[in-house]
C-alpha cells in the first residue's frame, strides 16, 4: 500500500510533511532542525533538544509535564540528536495514541501538537539564558552521553573509525560535540544557539498518522506566523574522497573480544544510478544472512558472530565491522578483503544478485509498516531532495545489473581501519 504523502510550507522555511496510513494505532509528530555540523556549534546545538524536552513557559515543571504526558495515554516525548551526512539534526518528537483508541474522547492530536509547539516556541529562557537548574542537569547528561559511548563497543568502534576517516571534515564531528566543548557551555550560549536555530535553520516537521492533519496544520501555521525567520540552507560536501594510503588506528581496552572496523571510499560520482549500484553491491557483499561475509567469514570460517557491511548513503562509503578474537583479527581482515576481491572479479552467481534484490524488495516494502521507518525514510528523502517513495526506489534498484555491481565493487578502496583490542598480555 502506497501512502498519501503531502508536503506543505507552513512558515518561512518550515515544512510539514504528512504521511497518512490507517494501519497504526498511534500518531507520531517529529520536529527537526537541520544545522550544519561543525566542532564549534555541535555541543551547543545538541543541548537544545534536551532542554526543550524539559519544559516550556506553559509547562515549567518537569514532573507536571510528564504527568500531562501520562494523561495523553503515556505519550512518548523525546529530544534527540541525529547526524545525516554533514548535517546535525536536532529533533523533538511526540508519539501518542490515535484518537480512535482513547478512552475519554480527548482531542489528542491537537493536544499533542499544541504541547510540542509550546515546548518548541516558548522555551524556559529568562534574561537571555536557559533556566539554570535544568541547564546544569542537561549539560551533565550530554557529557554523560558522550562518555558512555564507550559502553557499547560495537557502535563505539564504528564511530571511532568514522572520526578517523573524516578527520578535519564535518562528517568526522561527534554529533554530541566533545566533552570539553560541553563542559564550557553557558546558559546564554545555548540560548543564542536556540535563537539561531529557530530563526535560521530549515525546519522539517513530519507527521505520520491515520487522518490528514488539517486541524494540526492550521495550528502549526498560526504558531509560525509569529516567528520571524531568515533561513540559511545546509550544504552537503558531495565530492569523492581523496586517494591516500590506508590509515590505521588501534585502541586497547579491557575486553574479551576485539572489534574490527574497516572504512572504504568509492571513486563513483554522486549520481542516483551509482548509488543504486553501490547499495546493491554492499548488500550482496555483507548485508544479508546469505551475503558473502556472513556465509564465508562467519559460517564457513567460524571467525565471528557478526561480520557485516553497510553503506552510508550520504557519504557514499562502505563500513565493514566484525567482532573477532584478538588473535584472529588479521585473519578476519584478510578474509574480508578476499571476499571483496571475489566480487570485484565478478566471481559470484547471478542468483546471489537476484536474491539480494529480493531481500531489498522486502526491506523497501516493509518501510510503510513502521512509524519510525516511515519517518526516517521521508526525512532522508527530504534531505537529499529526492522525494521518492520506498516503492519508487525499489523499482529503480531493479535496473542494477551484475556489471554494475562489479563496477561498484571496483570503485571501492580501503581507506581506514580501526581496531579495538584487549590489553596485551
Amino acid at each position: 500500500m502506497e501512502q498519501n504523502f503531502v508536503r506543505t510550507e507552513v512558515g518561512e522555511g518550515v515544512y510539514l510533511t504528512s504521511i497518512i496510513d490507517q494501519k497504526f494505532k498511534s500518531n507520531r509528530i517529529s520536529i527537526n532542525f537541520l544545522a550544519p555540523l561543525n566542532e564549534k556549534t555541535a555541543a551547543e546545538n545538541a543541548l537544545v533538544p534536551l532542554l526543550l524536552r524539559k519544559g516550556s513557559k506553559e509547562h515549567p515543571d518537569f514532573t507536571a509535564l510528564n504527568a500531562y504526558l501520562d494523561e495523553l495515554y503515556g505519550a512518548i516525548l523525546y529530544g534527540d540528536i541525529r547526524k545525516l551526512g554533514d548535517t546535525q539534526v536536532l529533533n523533538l518528537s511526540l508519539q501518542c495514541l490515535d484518537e480512535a483508541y482513547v478512552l475519554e474522547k480527548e482531542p489528542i492530536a491537537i493536544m499533542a501538537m499544541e504541547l510540542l509547539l509550546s515546548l518548541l516556541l516558548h522555551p524556559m529562557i529568562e534574561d537571555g539564558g536557559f533556566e539554570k537548574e535544568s541547564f546544569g542537569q542537561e549539560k551533565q547528561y550530554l557529557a554523560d552521553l558522550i562518555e558512555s559511548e564507550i559502553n557499547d563497543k560495537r557502535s563505539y568502534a564504528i564511530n571511532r573509525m568514522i572520526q578517523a576517516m573524516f578527520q578535519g571534515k564535518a562528517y568526522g564531528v561527534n554529533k554530541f560535540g566533545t566533552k570539553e566543548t560541553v563542559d564550557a557551555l553557558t546558559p546564554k550560549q545555548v540560548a543564542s544557539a536556540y535563537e539561531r536555530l529557530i530563526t535560521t535553520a530549515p525546519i522539517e516537521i513530519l507527521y505520520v498518522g491515520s487522518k490528514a492533519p488539517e486541524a494540526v496544520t492550521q495550528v502549526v501555521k498560526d504558531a509560525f506566523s509569529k516567528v520571524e525567520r531568515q533561513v540559511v540552507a545546509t550544504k552537503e560536501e558531495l565530492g569523492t574522497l581523496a586517494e591516500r594510503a590506508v590509515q590505521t588506528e588501534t585502541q586497547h581496552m579491557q575486553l574479551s573480544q576485539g572489534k574490527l572496523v574497516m572504512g572504504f571510499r568509492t571513486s563513483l560520482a554522486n549520481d542516483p544510478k551509482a548509488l543504486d549500484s553501490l547499495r546493491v553491491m554492499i548488500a550482496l557483499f555483507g548485508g544479508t544472512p546469505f551475503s558473502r561475509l556472513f556465509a564465508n567469514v562467519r559460517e564457513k570460517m567460524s571467525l565471528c558472530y557478526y561480520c557485516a557491511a553497510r553503506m552510508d548513503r550520504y557519504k557514499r562509503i562502505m563500513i565493514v565491522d566484525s567482532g573477532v578474537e584478538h588473535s584472529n583479527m588479521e585473519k578476519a581482515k584478510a578474509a574480508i578483503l578476499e571476499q571483496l576481491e571475489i566480487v570485484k572479479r565478478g566471481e559470484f552467481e547471478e542468483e546471489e544478485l537476484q536474491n539480494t534484490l529480493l531481500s531489498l524488495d522486502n526491506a523497501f516494502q516493509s518501510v510503510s509498516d513502521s512509524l519510525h521507518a516511515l519517518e526516517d525514510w521521508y526525512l532522508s528523502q527530504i534531505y537529499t531532495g529526492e522525494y521518492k517513495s520506498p516503492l519508487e526506489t525499489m523499482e529503480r534498484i531493479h535496473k542494477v545489473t551484475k556489471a554494475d555491481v562489479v563496477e561498484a565493487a571496483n570503485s571501492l578502496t580501503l581507506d581506514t581501519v580501526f581496531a579495538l583490542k584487549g590489553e596485551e598480555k
Partner: protein
Amino acid sequence: MEKIVHENQKLGSRYFEIKHPTGLTLLLCPDQKFNSAYAIFGTNYGSVDTTFRIKGEGKEFESVPEGIAHYLEHKLFESEDGDAFARYAVLGASANAFTSFDKTCYLFSATDHIYESLEVLLDFVQSPYFTKETVEKEQGIIGQEIKMYDDDPNWQVYFRLLRALYKEHPVRIDIAGTVESIAQITDKLLYQCYNTFYNLNNMVLAFAGNFEVDKAMEVIDKTLKPCPKLTIERKTVEEPREVCEHRTEVKLPVSMPLFCIGFKEEPDRPEDFIKGQVLNEMLQDILTAESSPLFGELYKEGLINMEFDSEVVAGRGYLASVFEGESKDPDAVYARILEELNALRKNGIPKDRFERAKKALYGKYVRLFNSVSGIANELVSAYFVGDSIYSPVELIEAITLEDVEERLKTTMLREYSAISIVVPAEEEA
C-alpha cells in the same frame, strides 16, 4: 478443527486460535492493511529448561549443559542440503531466531512469497540435522557471541542481578551458556532436546499481517508432520524467596556506574500471570515513572538521568521487578527507592497518580498493536501463559486503586531485593 475467535472491538482487532490435528496450536491474525506478514514458530523451551524427562517413560530426570537451547536454535538452521537462510534467500524473506529464558522462536517477515516462506519455516524447524562435525563448527561462532556479551556492560549488570536474586532457579544462568558448558554439547544431546521440546504439542505458530487464512491453512496442512502426544516434566527447583546476596559489583570499561536494582517476587498462579505482571508494572510506574515525585527529585539531584527505566521480568517460576539506569551513586538510588516504597505503604497511593499510571500503561499496551512483529510476539507470549493478547488492555481498564494497594503489601520488599553494579575500571596507563 476447533477454532476460537478472540476479539477486542475497541482495538478493532481479532485473531483465530486453532488446534491443529497434529497437536500444534495456530494463532492467526490477518490484517491486510500491513504490507508484510510476520510469522513466529515457537517452542515452549528456553535456557531455563535444563532438567527434564518425558512423562510415562519411567526415567529419572536428566540435566543437559547450560546454553543448549540456544545452541540448538543455531544448529536447526542447517540441514543436509544447505541452510535455511539460503532457502529464504530465493524468496526475499527476512529471517531470524532467538532464544530467551523460556522460549525459542524462529521467525520471518515477508512482503512477497509469503506462503512459500511459511512453508520453509515450518519445514526446516521440523527437520533437524546434527552431526559431530556441524556441531563442532558452531563452537567458534557461539564462543564469539558469548564473548560479545561478556564485554557488554548492560548485559553483565542484568545477569549479575539475576544471579544475586536467584539461588537455584536456572534463570540465573546465561542464555548462551559459557565457553566451557557449550564444549560439552554433542549431536546426541541436541537430538534428545529436540525430540522432547520440538514436539508440536509443545509449540505454537503465530502469524500476523498481510495474509489470507485459507491460503495459510493449505500450507500448514501440507507441511506439518504428525507427532506423538507427549507430556514434558520439567524438574522444578525449590527456590526460596530469600536472595543469594543483596549487593554485587564488578569493574568493566564504562564511563559511569551502571545499576540494576531487583525485587524478587512470589510468582503468581499461572491464571494470574498477566494480571500480576500488569500490577507490578503499574506499581513501578507509580513509584518511578518520569511523572513521579521520586523521579523528579533524583533527577534534580543528579542521581539518575533519562536512561533510567523499569521492567518486570517474569516466566515459569520467576518474577522480579527491576529498576535500571546509570548513576554516580547507585546505592543512594537504591536507598531512595526503598524509602519511597515505605512512604507509599504508609500513606497510601494518591488517586491521581494511580489514574495516570493506568492511562499510561493502557497506551503502552495499545502501542504493541502498531506492528506485525509486536502482534506476533505478543501472540506467542500470551499463549504460553495461557492467555489472549487482549488480556493486558482489558485487565488494565478493570484494575482498581485497592488492587494496587493490596499488591504493594506483598511486592517490592526490601528483604527480597538486591542491587547489581558495574563500576568503571581504572583508566589504563
